[in-house]
């Protein structure tokens, strides 16, 4: 049963049914943070005689709305002393959702979906939790534009952070380049080096402020092999490989005579057609054709 006084307060402020809805909404908001003020005597009196505009049906609707807002406000207003961290229910619900994702983190929209809370409530709660240093914001390498949150006791997983080579969601190119140069120097000195030797060499130099693993060194060497800066070979046990067991994978510079003379460009890539992004549009008599091609003209005008 809805308190009569409450209805009277509302009615005293409302002029139309629309106003009643607006008032109800406002009351809901106010109820979140503070209990509604007690109705004044005048208001109660005024509320005793409903205006001619309103019908019983409207009153029933108002009553239902009031009871809902009272329920919500009562939920939100649950005493914070019951929570060990002093969190309100919404904050607790959001924190639990975040903690459940552990080191994967959770997107804001997913928080809203899981907790079924409104945008305003979620945003406010997140702000509060951040202030209390219970959660942290992390950059998800897969979706940099979407805000992700994680409980402070977890470190972002590799899927989220991108691994040791990523910082704030971006590839740490400087770190990668420094390590590449160090690896190249090691191989230059040793002529032929195994993965273990390069790893040992890097560890001794203490260039980075973390314990560089052999896997990380392998990743760096592998990327240089893909770039053709070094080649991967297997030890034959002969000559330069005498100290390396036969069959062990090693790394060295490509020492072929053609490599030194810069003969590595393919025949097709040496002509304009090989590099042309428009070759599929080029036809003998078309707008793009060998006789009209500007790349050809430029190439033939170079002093060879």
């Amino acid at each position, binding site marked *: 049963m809805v308190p009569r006084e409450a209805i009277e307060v509302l009615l005293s402020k409302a002029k139309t049914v629309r106003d009643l809805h607006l008032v109800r909404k406002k009351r809901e908001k106010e109820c979140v943070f503070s209990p509604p003020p007690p109705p004044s005597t005048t208001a109660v009196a005024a509320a005793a005689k409903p205006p001619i505009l309103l019908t019983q049906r409207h009153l029933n609707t108002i009553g239902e709305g009031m009871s809902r807002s009272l329920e919500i406000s009562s939920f939100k207003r649950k005493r914070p002393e019951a929570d060990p961290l002093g969190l309100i229910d919404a904050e607790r619900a959001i924190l639990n959702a975040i903690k459940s994702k552990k080191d994967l983190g959770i997107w804001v929209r997913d928080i809203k979906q899981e907790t079924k809370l409104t945008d305003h409530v979620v945003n406010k709660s997140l702000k509060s939790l951040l202030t209390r240093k219970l959660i942290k914001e992390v950059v998800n390498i*897969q979706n940099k534009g979407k805000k992700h949150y994680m409980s402070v006791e977890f470190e972002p997983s590799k899927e989220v952070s991108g691994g040791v080579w990523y910082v704030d969601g971006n590839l740490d190119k400087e770190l990668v380049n420094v390590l590449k140069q160090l690896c190249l120097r090691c191989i230059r000195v040793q002529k032929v080096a195994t993965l273990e030797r390069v790893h040992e060499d890097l560890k001794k130099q203490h260039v980075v402020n973390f314990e560089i693993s052999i896997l990380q060194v392998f990743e760096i060497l592998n990327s240089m092999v893909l770039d053709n800066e070094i080649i991967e070979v297997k030890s034959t046990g002969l000559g330069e490989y005498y100290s390396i067991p036969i069959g062990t994978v090693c790394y060295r510079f490509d020492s072929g005579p053609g490599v030194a003379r810069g003969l590595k460009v393919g025949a097709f890539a040496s*002509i304009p057609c*090989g590099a042309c992004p428009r070759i599929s549009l080029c036809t003998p008599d078309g707008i793009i054709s060998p006789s009209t091609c500007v790349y050809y003209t430029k190439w033939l005008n170079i002093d060879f």
Partner: protein
Amino acid sequence: MVSQYGIKLAAYLISSSYGDFCSKVCECLLSRGTLTLAQIIRFTELSRENVINCLRVLIHQNCVQAFSIQQEVAFGEAPKIVTQYMALFDNTIHKMRFPKFMQIVSEELGKDCLGIFEGLLQHGRLSLNQIIDRNMQTPDNSDVHAVRESFSRLLNARFVERCPAPEPFLAPPEEETPAKKRGRWTSLDLWDLIGLAPILHIAEAPKTIEQRALATASPMESIRFLMEIDTLRGTSEEKGMESHDIATLEEKWKQDFSDAELSSSGKKKEILWRVNFEEFVRRLRHKACIEYVRIRLSDQAGIVLSAILELTRSSETRLKTDKSASMSINDIYDEVIKKDGGLGMDLERVRASLVQLGCQIPTTGIDETYSIDLKNIIELAQNEEVESVVLKRYGREAYRIFRLLSKSGRLLETDKISDTTFVEKKDTLKILYKLWKDGYLHMEKVSVNGPKQTLFLLWEVDKESLWVRVLDEMYHAALNLRLRITYEQDQEKEILQLPTEKLVGELEKRYKRLRKVRIILESSLMNLDDALMLFHDF
């Protein structure tokens, strides 16, 4: 199946040498496959006479092969024999590389053989008498004996071969028995009948009708490079045989064979000879492998490979041999020391080079033989060629990504690619998409059902389809180079017509520019042709 620009390039080469009508006929056969005369006339819309003349030229130039087959008819009707024509794409494209073939002959056999060889390149097919007659007309002609000697050297080196049967008959496949497959007789060429019938002697049975036709037309290996029968007349003349003795011999031939098998004059047809393209392709394949090894590994490795291929060349039965024949270390060493730069190599140095070439030193010294994986060398060269294009067109990061996928040979997920190649994740997807759109990569989508449905994109290099695409682009580029050469010459045609003394000032500048441009374009075309052969012939 020939690719689009392969056909265009072949048509252009025919047009440059033999005119537009021949080019039209050639393009029709390459595009539509094997056709009858009536079909060619219909599709080219040329007159019957023109088509027949073009076919004669193309057959004579070894660009078309004719053959007869039994056509299916309604029950009760007599079987009908029809003649069909097929284009020989490889031989047509070989016209672009005649200078390379000539260089090989010149280096190996000298000027005299080169003269004969040039004649065969120009005319397509010649009999020995025609070769001799042609030589007589040159300013520095040699005597008949010298010409025969030079011709014999070309045959011994397998640079020249007997022409195939002009129109072999293909029996229906179901009628062929194993016995009948051997010792098949053609009824149209006298010399093919003389105990030398073409047989289906290749290791695998040919599958398509075109392959069967080529196999049937080919002379037997035992007579393919044999000059002796053809020398009977010449030898008899040299030996001063009486004319009635020669006539007796001819009478004997007439008795042995039907009139239809003889030429209309009643005399035996002369053997026709042509360039053996297969041998030149083999030589160029070996040369490419040696050059690759020399540049990528070392000069010594190049010398050792050259020695091995020299020793094993004659034993190669197939053109695209995967591995060289096995040779003992001593045989290899004996050949190495004959090569330029090989004299200073000892056995240990040879062994080290063999290891560089991918061989393993046997643990026991009893049977120390080595064989080189040529297929692997060719594949490495092909990979480098394509990687070079990717680097030039799409940049270094794309190059790394492509090499990763090419080396792994399997599907890899986007994140894995990004992590391994140290490319930003957002850039990785863009690069992969660009490569996929241009046909360099194959992509598959995998959906994983879990708490959340996740879509993964997997990528790989499909070498089979990519190699076809790259080859077509190379044909396109080769055609472009040829067209640009023609264009540049057309632009300066008035300068080319001027005498040298008038080429001064601005005209001289233009002339020198034209010369430079031609050198660049023609040398680029020869280099590109090496790459074409790498993907098509090797």
